[in-house]
């Protein structure tokens, strides 16, 4: 069905932001204004290229570069467009925001402009690595890219260089690297078994592995999938591997938090799906396990979010729970389930980025971040509060926002597949999410403020910040009202996920589907 055509676009998608980063590092010192321009242009170019890829994949093509080292099918297309889009928005947001933030502190031994250079350079690298991860077709390189995205974001997390952010940075790098190392072991196992059948280096290419994954020895399959789940799951913030997440997301500069929570978790999840789904037809229980893990994650995330007073930590924990939902979707494993999972992935990316940006705006203007300290901002910063509410309602799945669509699809899929416990817990969880977010929103925007948040100088955030938030808010609302807009790419992507394991053509799928029906019917 899908025709593989060698193309330069996937390569460009990775190369453009990378070169932008390099240029920023080199030129940032001399031309102060240039770095922002480069950053925005770079991410915009990336967005354009990914749009091209999306259109190509919608035509049923698969673009490859470097003789299949990079491999862009519709699943990759979905994610890279998401990454570059959010990247662009984050860049626009940063323009004023970071200029203000670097006054307070940042990486040592540098001037404020040096800090800005570092910030933009690293964040472009971060985006580039994530794009690379989503495009890589080489199982080892997939790991390398994911790990590289950790490295690239490491300094960003510790950017403010005070006690809290340093601690967060240490935990982030240490825990993530250890976790990811497990997945490297998983990849090694997959590669080793693949190489024994395919021979040579062909075993490294996912597109080749999928053809032989069915014939791996079962124990290897179990070991590999376990290690992959743990490894990429750590990066995706799946409980109980999530503790790094709230620290990092809360301490990083807001644009970075938005990217971390918005896309990086998704990239990890993508890597997880890419690799583990190889075994899905032969080892159906892995899906049920993913389902259970997802439910556990969403419960833990919600409970933790309940107990938070720090705005950004609260958002971070709710990201944990939302990742749980996405995982539930993939775990359900039916066509509808995977579709719902991807849909929620998209929605959560938008909504949670929106929430983080709004929280950043609040911090920007008030300098306070504790829910208990904030209050009464509805009058002072109306647009921000509007955006925050949109985000909150979207995440907690209230119509007419996008979150509602995806969660509805999710629960329907669960009900169809008979995973009632997941459905019930999921609904309960989304109620808790709503309580958490709306409680926070209420006390932040209507409640009583304490200094410094109560200072009369507090006013709406600058234009670029507001613009970026509004774009996201509109997207949330738009998708909520007219979901068909995003249906085709999601459909294609979910089809890809379903066929990763099977031999990739329709015949093989028809072979594999009865097997997996059996697996579903308990």
């Amino acid at each position, binding site marked *: 069905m899908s025709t593989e055509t060698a193309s330069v676009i996937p390569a460009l998608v990775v190369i453009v932001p990378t070169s932008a980063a390099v240029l920023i590092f080199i030129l940032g010192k001399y031309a102060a204004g240039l770095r922002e321009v480069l950053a925005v242009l770079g991410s915009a170019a990336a967005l354009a290229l990914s749009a091209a890829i999306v259109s190509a994949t919608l035509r049923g093509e698969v673009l490859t570069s470097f003789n299949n080292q990079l491999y862009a099918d519709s699943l990759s297309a979905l994610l890279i467009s998401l990454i570059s889009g959010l990247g662009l928005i984050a860049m626009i947001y940063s323009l004023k925001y970071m200029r203000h933030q670097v006054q307070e502190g940042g990486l040592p031994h540098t001037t404020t402009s040096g800090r800005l250079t570092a910030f933009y350079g690293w964040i472009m690298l971060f985006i580039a690595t994530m794009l690379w991860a989503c495009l890589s077709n080489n199982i080892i390189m997939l790991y390398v890219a994911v790990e590289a995205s950790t490295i690239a974001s490491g300094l960003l997390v510790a950017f403010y260089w005070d006690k809290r952010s340093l601690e967060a940075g240490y935990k982030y790098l240490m825990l993530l690297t*250890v976790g990811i190392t497990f997945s490297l072991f998983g990849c090694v196992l997959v590669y080793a078994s693949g190489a024994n059948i395919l021979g040579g280096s062909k075993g490294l290419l996912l597109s080749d592995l999928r053809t032989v994954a069915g014939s791996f020895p079962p124990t290897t399959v179990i070991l590999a999938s376990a290690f992959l789940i743990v490894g990429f799951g750590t990066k995706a913030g799946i409980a109980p*591997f999530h*503790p790094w997440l709230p620290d990092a997301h809360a301490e990083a500069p807001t644009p970075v938090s938005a990217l971390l929570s918005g896309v990086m978790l998704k990239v990890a999840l993508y890597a997880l799906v890419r690799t583990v789904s190889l075994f899905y037809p032969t080892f159906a229980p892995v899906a049920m396990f993913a389902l259970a893990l997802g439910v556990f994650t969403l419960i833990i995330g919600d409970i933790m979010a309940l107990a938070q007073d720090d705005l950004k930590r609260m958002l971070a924990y709710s990201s944990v729970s939302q990742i749980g939902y996405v995982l539930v979707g993939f775990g359900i494993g039916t066509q509808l389930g995977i579709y719902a999972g991807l849909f929620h992935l998209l929605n959560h990316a938008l909504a949670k980025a929106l929430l983080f940006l709004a929280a950043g705006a609040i911090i920007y203007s008030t300098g306070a971040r504790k829910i208990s300290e904030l209050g009464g901002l509805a009058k002072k910063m109306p647009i921000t509060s509007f955006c925050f509410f949109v985000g909150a309602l979207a995440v907690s799945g209230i119509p007419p926002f996008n979150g509602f669509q995806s969660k509805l699809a999710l629960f329907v899929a669960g009900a169809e597949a008979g995973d009632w416990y997941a459905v019930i817990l999921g609904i309960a969880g989304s109620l808790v999410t709503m309580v958490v977010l709306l409680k926070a929103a209420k006390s932040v925007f209507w409640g009583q403020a304490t200094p410094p948040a109560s200072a009369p100088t507090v006013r709406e955030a600058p234009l670029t910040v507001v613009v970026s938030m509004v774009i996201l808010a509109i997207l949330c609302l738009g998708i909520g009202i007219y979901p068909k807009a995003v249906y085709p790419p999601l459909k294609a992507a979910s089809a890809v996920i379903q066929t990763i394991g099977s031999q990739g053509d329709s015949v093989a799928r028809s072979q594999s589907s009865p097997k997996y029906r059996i697996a579903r019917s308990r």
Partner: protein
Amino acid sequence: MTSEQLLFLAFGLLVVGAVITSLFHKDWRKTGYIATAFMGVASISLWILALRAFSQNIADIRPGLKLAVLGASLTFHIDKLSAIFLLVLPFVGLASMVYAIEYMGKVYAGQSPARYYPFALLLMGAIVGVVASSDLFFFIVFWELMTLTSWVLVWFDREDATKVRAAWVYFVMIHVATACMLAAGVVTYSLSGSWAFGDIAGALGRMGQTNPVLIHIVLALFLIGFTTKAGMFPFGGWLPEAHPAAPGPASAIFSGAMIKTGIYGVFRVFVEFLAPEYREVWGGIIAVLGTTSIFVGTLTALLQDDSKRVLSFHSIGQVGYMLLGIGTGIFFLNSSPVIAVVALIAGLFHVVNHACFKSLLFLNAAAAEYSTGTRDLNKVGGLGALMPLTMATAIIASLAIAGIPPLNGFASKWLIYQSSFQGGLTSPLFLLLVLAAFFSSIATLASFMKFLGAIFLGKLATAGKKVTGDVPASMQAPQIALAVACIVLGIIPLLPITLLYGAVRGSLGSMSVPGFANIFGANLSGISLHFGGVTAGVWNPAIATIGLLVCGLIAYAISKSGNAPSRETAPWYGGEEYTTDQVRYRAHGFVLPFKSAFVRIYPTVRLPRMNLQFLRKLFDFDGWLYNPLVKSGSRLTDRISRSHSGLPAMYMLWQLIGVVLVLVILFAWR
């Protein structure tokens, strides 16, 4: 006399002696002589019996006492295994009786002999019954009798509250163990319909086919029952409580004779009755438990400052050696009979040796207490100058228990090392066990250096000032006898080993066992072990002893070669001499560097006070049901969030646990 009459004579004598001695209330010495007389004659008849048993087993003796309801009938069956115990245990008993004559009279002058001797004699009778009877029901009856009489001896000194508490600990722990044993017995009875040993073996065999889970439970129950009495860690917690509480001679009987019955039981059940397919697992369990017992017991003994507590903890350790030997033997019975036979013999040999040197050590400790009135190693010292004979025996016993050649302790330990080492070549676990055992034997040496140095050597402490001379002859005699036994068993180990070989072979029954010469070599002056035909270890005590003497003489000649003059002086303290106690080096400091490493690895026994509070609590539903539920519900969120402590290592631990869980779940799921 027929052997039947001999056995009954022994029992009769012990019982009658108990009755008669119970009539005396004042005169310790006279009572002592009477008891000794009865014990002596009984022992002689038992020895004759045992020697006959070595020529051929003394088949079932049935006094006709039957419990038709239970299908139990009192039956005695004295095979070579029982004979071994019948040789050794009465010897210990007799020694302690003789010793008690003077000792009890002086130390417990106020008390009444009627509360000591009858129970001591009955205890011996019970012990004999335990090792002689071949019917599980009456075995347990004798066992219980043994427990009760020894329990009375533990709280012999009623005035002392701590001793009464020790007795309480002893009573509870032992009865828990007995309950386990009884339960196991009932299960086997329900399967076989008879209590006779032979049928029990059959029952265990059948259980193997029908209900493999049950048999493991039964075996575990048996093991707990026996090893508690034997004092194995962790069930031996009563031992360091009960031994110091009991009077000196009584603790000699306890450690020298009574705890051996536990080993006897283990040997009977796990060597004779056990079906081959369970040997490996249970042999391994026994060996590992034994080694743990060695390690923990010995290292804890190192930290004690009360002479009898030191000895009791060493009993825990030494029992470990016996169990290590027996366990190794059971483990290798299927795979390599040679190793198995050597190990089993080693274990039993250590039982015999331990009976000698440990009872001797208890007598020595008692002698020190007898003359100074204290057991605190930090208070006594320098008694050797005043009681040379006691010191000599004490040194022999200490070196024997520390396994210094050419004494008997070395012979048995050497056999244990050899067998476990050979076993370790095929299953490396046993190498670790050997190492632990070896290390512990050095630790044993350390703690007995401390024991000797503190009690007998060094400067005379104030506690010893009033000591007039060595203990009276009636207390010397048993010490010397036991010391001689230690030396003889050490120098001609092959004599006991031949007897033990017979015993082991007898209890292995139909199994084909390699011939004696094929294991221990033809050369009767020393042991040369053959494993699979090749000689793997040699120990020739005769030549070694002669060599030692010769070399000692050479050394003596060298020292005399310069015919140097000699002169008496005072010790040099690097200056002015203070009064003794200030410059004395106390026992406490001896292993000080070591103590920092091993503090408190032995759990202390704590028994709860009985109180009826819980009944009232039981009906207070709010108290234990509703309020907690409500509270916990409200606190749940907080709890879970508290688990995010922020400690990086903690999170890492989560990750690790997560990995394990994921693996387990996925593997379980397929």
